[in-house]
């Protein structure tokens, strides 16, 4: 499985969290948000993960613009993290690009990674 880390900030930290969780089960690349969204569009990656300070701002902006809203889910925004069930729903709906607020990275990834990496 291939995951691309886009979004705006804390990319290295997110990559480390994913690698720590999945080891060599996934290959993780860090790209600029635009390049990452384009690579997703070209089918080079299975999932897009990104963070910014507002969740859904810089985290998902280019993904939403290029892939469309029906492919993207904002898992946390300031003042609100989606419940574990809601995150599960989003994954099951077939969303492939996830954005969240950087400060929630640990919380959100601990829920979403087990769902997408099997």
């Amino acid at each position, binding site marked *: 499985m291939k995951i691309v880390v886009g979004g*705006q*900030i*804390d990319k290295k930290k997110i990559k480390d969290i994913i690698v720590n969780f999945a080891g060599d089960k996934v290959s993780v690349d860090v790209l*600029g*948000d*635009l*390049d990452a969204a*384009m690579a997703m569009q070209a089918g080079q990656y299975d999932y897009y993960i990104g963070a*910014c*300070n*507002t*969740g*859904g*701002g*810089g*985290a*998902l*902006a*280019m993904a*939403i*613009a*290029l892939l*469309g*809203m*029906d492919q993207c889910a*904002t898992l946390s*925004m*300031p*003042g*609100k*993290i989606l*419940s574990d069930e809601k995150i599960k729903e989003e994954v099951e709906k077939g969303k492939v690009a996830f*954005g969240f*607020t*950087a*400060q*929630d990275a640990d919380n959100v990834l601990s829920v979403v990674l087990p769902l997408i990496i099997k």
Partner: protein
Amino acid sequence: MELVIIGLLGALASILANKQIAVFHDGFRPIVGNYLNGKIDKKTLGVTSFALSFGLVIGFGLPFSIGKSIILIHCILLATDIIGSLSPEGKKGLIVSGVIGGLFGVGLSLGLDLIIEAFTHLPYNFLPHLGSVGKPVVVAFAVFPALAVALQHDFKKGMYTLAAIFASMVLINKYGTFDISGNTVKLSMEGMGLLVGVIMMVVFAIRTGETTSSNEQLVSIFSQNVARIKKNWIYLVVMGAIVSAATAATIIAGDPISLNLMAEGQMTEAALAAFARGIGFVPLIFTTAIATGVYAPAGVTFVFAIGIITGNPWLAFPLGGAMIGLELLALDGTAKFLDRFAGVKNMGEHIRTSMNNVLEIALLVGSMIAANAMSPKFGFLFVVALYTINRTSKKPLVNIAVGPIAVILLGVILNVLALLNLWVVPV
């Protein structure tokens, strides 16, 4: 005068959001793009706008604006995104959004004045302490380029940048005062430090030699979007002119760092900080604009720097407008530039991250000092408690706003305690 400017600002920004010409929230812009493509309906657009922005108005914009005479722009332009998106389409929407937006601007300004007035009637007026929350920001902000360099490149380059910033601050502090025909001219220590840091940051970014072609591809895929933005140039120019004039009149500020510097009267430093922040926003705002055909009401935020540096609304108005005009002309060309110097594009997100980190820690310390001054018995405990416990919440406050919110809460609690005779108001 002040109410007229802020009323116009609110009205025009709401109309631009209503007509899908410009929205402030960078994450909301692609969603407007989806609406323009017919992928989502008007109701979803309005609801999403509310969901994205309302929490930020309350949790980010207001805490930085309460008790200050300057309003953080997020309070206004995130709200006008919502007003414009929830208003109906067509002529009716134009009128509805314009009127509500204008009333909102005026109401916000009056409301915040009312809050300042209300403070003086409290048993314990903690407004002066609230003002001191931003004190560490005023000096510490100059360090952000060093952190941005460390984040983008490595620890060692970050330390070099820090050393250069620190050295220039020491030198300016010692030798930065001149006598020019009897007038004492004092160079700003933090301002010069920041300038040196920003220059090093840009040089390091250019020297990475990274290139890409994705921005130019984006422009060619979405050329009709670029055309749509340029077609609306007159509205965008007027909007930018008003934002710049409002900043020059110190009614609004574009970010918490320059807001605190402006409140301390350090205009040169505020302008530099606003300008450096603008550099960080160029890639994000340009790429989202090109991909959606929707621009930002304050452009890439350079209009704030222009407003601060001119300090005169009448001068800021034409210059701010001209700035937006330049940005629109540069829309295609900048994409090429960002491709050639991909290191500079990547620098953008590190600038935003580092400003955020610096702000978070500086405000946290400022809040602790302020809280301790208010109540040496509970102050430190209260801020530390709120900051740490907040992180475990399912509905956490934005980290950088926790400090100011904690001080406001503590002030309210102390007042209640004073009324209950459980706490003695210090003399």
